[in-house]
């Protein structure tokens, strides 16, 4: 019954003769909320692209909802790393959200009334329904990010992949944003993979955490041990200093 949402086994991705991802194993189940951390260039974005079927693994297997990633795309929502776009681009927030219906509508078909309704609902889900007819460039950074989340929600995904979605968003808006993800995860049952730099910020929200630097350090839980982090980052990392109430690091005996 408990279908694996993501199932990755012994996966390798190589570029120019050297491994970007090395022997990755990962399983996610319904309603999981995985925080994926790791140093820059550690392969976090690459792993998301593999899950989207944009990069083919050199070795190993990956299944999303038991399907090849490209075939599962219509069930996956994606929020890219800070979307770079022309701030004066002439589209309304609603038009941007409609773009997310592409995977359902398909090539050459027009968006219909259903699509529009779904777009308005998605905007409502992120609390932006009153901004639907505003030009995207007229919204604040945090509001734009909500619109991009609405765009990923509009195809009714069962899995949401977010690549450092809070870069360039101020910290008050960040907290709101994480609360929104929590709501999507708990109330709508959408599984989430959240790539982030900021362990302390996300540890409060996620139920699983993994650290990636070529290899994936993951124990199918919300705990990582100090050694994992040190191996991944290549140096000791101080995190407990912030005194997070929810333990990320297992204490060493």
């Amino acid at each position, binding site marked *: 019954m408990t279908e694996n949402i993501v199932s990755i086994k012994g996966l390798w991705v190589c570029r120019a003769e050297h491994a970007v991802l090395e022997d990755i194993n990962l399983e996610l189940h319904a309603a999981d909320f995985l925080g994926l951390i790791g140093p820059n260039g550690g392969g976090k974005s690459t792993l998301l692209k593999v899950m989207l079927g944009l990069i083919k693994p050199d070795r190993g297997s990956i299944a999303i909802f038991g399907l090849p990633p490209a075939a599962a795309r219509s069930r996956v929502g994606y929020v890219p790393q800070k979307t770079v776009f022309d701030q004066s681009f002439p589209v309304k927030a609603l038009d941007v959200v*409609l*773009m997310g219906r592409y*995977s359902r509508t398909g*090539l*050459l078909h027009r968006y219909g009334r259903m699509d529009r309704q779904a777009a308005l609902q998605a905007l409502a889900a992120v609390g932006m329904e009153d901004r639907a007819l505003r030009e995207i460039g007229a919204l604040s950074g945090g509001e734009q990010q909500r619109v991009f989340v609405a765009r990923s929600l509009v195809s009714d995904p069962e899995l949401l992949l977010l690549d450092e979605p809070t870069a360039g968003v101020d910290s008050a808006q960040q907290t709101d944003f994480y609360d929104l993800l929590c709501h999507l995860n708990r109330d709508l049952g959408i599984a989430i993979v959240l790539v982030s730099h900021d362990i302390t910020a996300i540890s409060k929200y996620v139920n699983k955490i993994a650290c990636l630097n070529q290899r994936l350090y993951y124990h199918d839980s919300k705990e990582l041990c100090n050694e994992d982090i040190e191996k991944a980052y290549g140096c000791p990392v101080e995190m407990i200093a912030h005194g997070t109430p929810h333990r990320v690091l297992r204490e060493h005996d």
Partner: protein
Amino acid sequence: MIEMDFLQYDFMRNALAAGLAASVLCGIIGIYVILNKIVFISDGIAHAAFGGIGLGYFLGYDPLAFGIGSAVMTALGIGMVSSRARISEDTAIGVFMATGMALGIMLLTLSQGYARDLYGYLFGNILAVTRSDVLLISVLTLIILALVFLLYKEFLLLSFDPIYAEAIGLPVQSLRLLLLAMVAFSVVILIKIVGIIMVIALLTIPGAISRRHMKGLPAIMAGSIFLGAIFVTIGLLISYELDVPSGATIILTAAATFFLSTVLSR
């Protein structure tokens, strides 16, 4: 009446018809050129088309058809190069651009009667547009209109956010090549009207003005088509009345409007 007088002549009617069809092209393709930031690529394609035009002359075939051929090949070449990323895109454009111009000048020189035609291709000669040119331009305009109508949402997605577009399964590379091919067709048509050197102005000025005053892509396109038609008609009239070069008059009309609208909207 000036206008009645003006429309008596066949060449004037052809010129006006070609100019109006070209405004439709400029209005639509020009907006995509601006939004996708491919102004330099488009200019490169226009210059590279000159190689094909020269070849057509040299071999004694229709220069326009050869121009379209070489423009499309250049567009696809640049599109492929930029996706392989061995050579940077602007370097590739520079090379294609200069090579096309050099080839064109060489081949035109080797053919007979080059001087007048050379001038016409570089600076445009809308009054030399023939009936068959008008037909060709109209058919191409209709094809491009149909493509944009069919692929409107795809081109919007591509222009707004290509990275996301690719992630959700849009055939980004094919669409980009198609867009570049459409630019190539448009550019060659515009060469007939304002010449290689000034193509880029007619392609971008109507869109740039319209974008500042209109909201939403369809309205911006419509405004841009309208402005293009105005520029072509006024430019043509002035050039006829004062007996000055048509291409330059059209561009100067457009440029004057552009500066005026910039100053006024401050």
